[in-house]
């Protein structure tokens, strides 16, 4: 090599790490696909067939898959076992873990501060009727998800509050549920604190702020089309006639000051797009959110962090006077609050990503990854347009099978990276293709994780409201055609791949834009 020095003393050998040992498998290199293959099968059965959206269940699946794969490895299994360690310590996994922890703290703090209550107030103040309510719900759910980053959280919050209110106003139930899921798609795709946004950026070597800015154009095109579709369909599709008032429901849950968290959300977005590290960007957003919560009485400091000190503790006599501590019975001792719960909420996903990256590493060292990649490049992705179309359709297909969309995204990400790099497709573009189709498909099909979580919430409504009958609950098989933003986003990317709209090459932007998180 003529020149491998990066200019700051970094040699390429240091970048790549020590030489790695290949793993041989009985049956050839294709058998190295077994761990990931067993996991995908497990995920399809668990989430697709049984309808169980339990991330820790997928962790169990990946553990079993790694054990099954070991029996196909030749020779000393020490090499196989060490590869698991090497995969789990890869920077791509660590980066996602760090970003998720920060995003979780921020997201929970916004929810503790009544962000959804602020949006309820906005909906009430806008005073829209049943025909326009699905369109308004789409906008507000999109804003909410862009703030908190989790479409699943938005599906729950909006199904619990906006759905019954919309029914009372005369909105069509199926259309309304579709609008909620569409808003979840929008935010899952665009939010810098979204788990899928983070995975898309770190697996494609792109910074999160740049990724958010570069995908804005696709998201807005799809959103404008979806909004028009909700306005049109809202007027065309009849609602239910219920002699109850939505006003009471709104007033009970309204918290105008919760809208202040739009500022917390913008702090993160603007800081990230300005080029600051995502950890710094979310930290500023978190600080602003905590200050708003306390100063504007949206939530006490104890909702952000609370030490539940056991009465048997030596500190019990004075700890209770602290704003972030209370004395409890010994069996109730613990730590809680949005910082604690936000981070802890990501623990199963963190373990899952570490194990999936380990499984991928086994597939890479066993040659299975290369075999699939060669097949794709020789038979399917034979030009840049076909490569992009393969990336769009491949991501959509995997997400339609593995319905916990972050897990699906992690599984397909290495192929998007390799196929894209083959044609020098810019990292932002690769991240955008990966995330848009992951976000969209996860909320469309009846077995999708986001759809099932929303459906579960709707099923609880007859128990909460006397007027709400089980006939008003929207079945997941009814809603899939009406998740307009999901369909339009997929369509925008399919057309973009076929026509070259938005296509950028690695030569179009200097690396300083894509080397930091």
């Amino acid at each position, binding site marked *: 090599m*003529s020149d491998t020095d990066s200019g700051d003393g970094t040699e390429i050998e240091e970048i790549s790490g020590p030489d790695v040992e290949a793993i041989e498998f009985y049956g050839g290199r294709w058998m190295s696909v077994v761990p990931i293959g067993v996991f995908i099968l497990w995920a399809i059965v668990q989430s697709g067939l049984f309808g169980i959206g339990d991330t820790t269940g997928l962790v169990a699946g990946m553990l079993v898959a790694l054990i099954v794969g070991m029996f196909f490895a030749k020779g000393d299994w020490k090499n196989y076992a060490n590869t698991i360690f090497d995969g789990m310590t890869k920077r791509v996994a660590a980066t996602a873990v760090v970003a998720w922890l920060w995003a979780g703290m921020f997201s929970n703090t916004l929810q503790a501060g009544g962000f959804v209550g602020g949006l309820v107030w906005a909906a009430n103040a806008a005073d829209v009727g049943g025909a326009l309510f699905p369109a308004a719900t789409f906008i507000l759910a999109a804003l909410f998800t862009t703030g908190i980053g989790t479409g699943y959280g938005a599906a729950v919050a909006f199904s619990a509050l906006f759905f019954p209110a919309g029914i009372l106003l005369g909105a069509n139930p199926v259309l309304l549920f579709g609008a909620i899921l569409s808003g979840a798609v929008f935010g899952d795709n665009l939010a810098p604190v979204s788990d899928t946004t983070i995975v898309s950026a770190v697996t494609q070597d792109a910074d999160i702020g740049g990724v958010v800015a570069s995908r804005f154009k696709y998201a807005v095109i799809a959103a404008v089309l979806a909004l028009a579709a909700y306005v049109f369909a809202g007027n065309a599709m009849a609602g239910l006639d219920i002699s109850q008032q939505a006003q009471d429901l709104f007033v009970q849950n309204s918290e105008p000051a919760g809208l202040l968290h739009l500022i917390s959300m913008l702090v993160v977005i603007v800081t990230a*797009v300005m080029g600051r590290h995502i950890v710094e960007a979310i930290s500023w957003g978190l600080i602003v959110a905590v200050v708003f919560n306390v100063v504007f009485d949206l939530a006490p400091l104890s909702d952000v962090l609370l030490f539940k000190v056991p009465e048997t503790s030596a500190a019990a006599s004075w700890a209770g006077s602290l704003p972030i501590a209370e004395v409890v019975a010994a069996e109730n001792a613990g730590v809680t609050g949005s910082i604690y719960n936000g981070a802890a909420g990501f623990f199963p996903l963190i373990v899952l990503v570490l194990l999936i990256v380990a499984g991928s590493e086994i597939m890479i060292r066993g040659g299975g990854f290369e075999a699939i990649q060669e097949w794709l490049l020789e038979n399917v992705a034979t030009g840049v347009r076909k490569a992009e179309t393969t990336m769009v359709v491949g991501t959509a297909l995997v997400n339609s099978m593995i319905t916990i969309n972050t897990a699906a995204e992690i599984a397909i990400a290495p192929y998007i990276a390799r196929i894209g790099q083959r044609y020098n497709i810019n990292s932002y573009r690769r991240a955008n293709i990966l995330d848009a189709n992951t976000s969209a498909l996860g909320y469309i099909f009846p077995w999708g994780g986001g759809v099932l979580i929303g459906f579960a919430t709707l099923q609880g409504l007859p128990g909460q409201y006397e007027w709400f009958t089980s006939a008003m609950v929207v079945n997941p098989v009814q809603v899939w055609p009406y998740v307009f933003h999901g369909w339009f986003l997929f369509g925008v990317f399919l057309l973009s791949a076929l026509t070259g709209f938005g296509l950028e090459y690695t030569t179009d932007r200097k690396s300083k834009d894509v080397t930091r998180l």
Partner: protein
Amino acid sequence: MSMFSKFLTGMSFRSTTPTFEAGEEIEVYVTELDEESGELVAQVGETRLHFENGEADIVGCRVLATVESFDNAEHRGRVSHRKTLSQGSF
């Protein structure tokens, strides 16, 4: 790049055969070792850039290169390898 332009970049229909100017400094992933010419090649869309130097172990790596010449009609160019920046993802 300003914050505003970050949102608007890429709002166009891009060719499958991007063009380059001699003397231009670019960052590319090295795609393959061309069997016919024995040269390293970076494929940018359908445009092929042949390396005048560099060894086979940088295939898949992101490198800094200088465009020495470019044929707009054939979508072919010659580049020189300046520096290896990083390995590709995964």
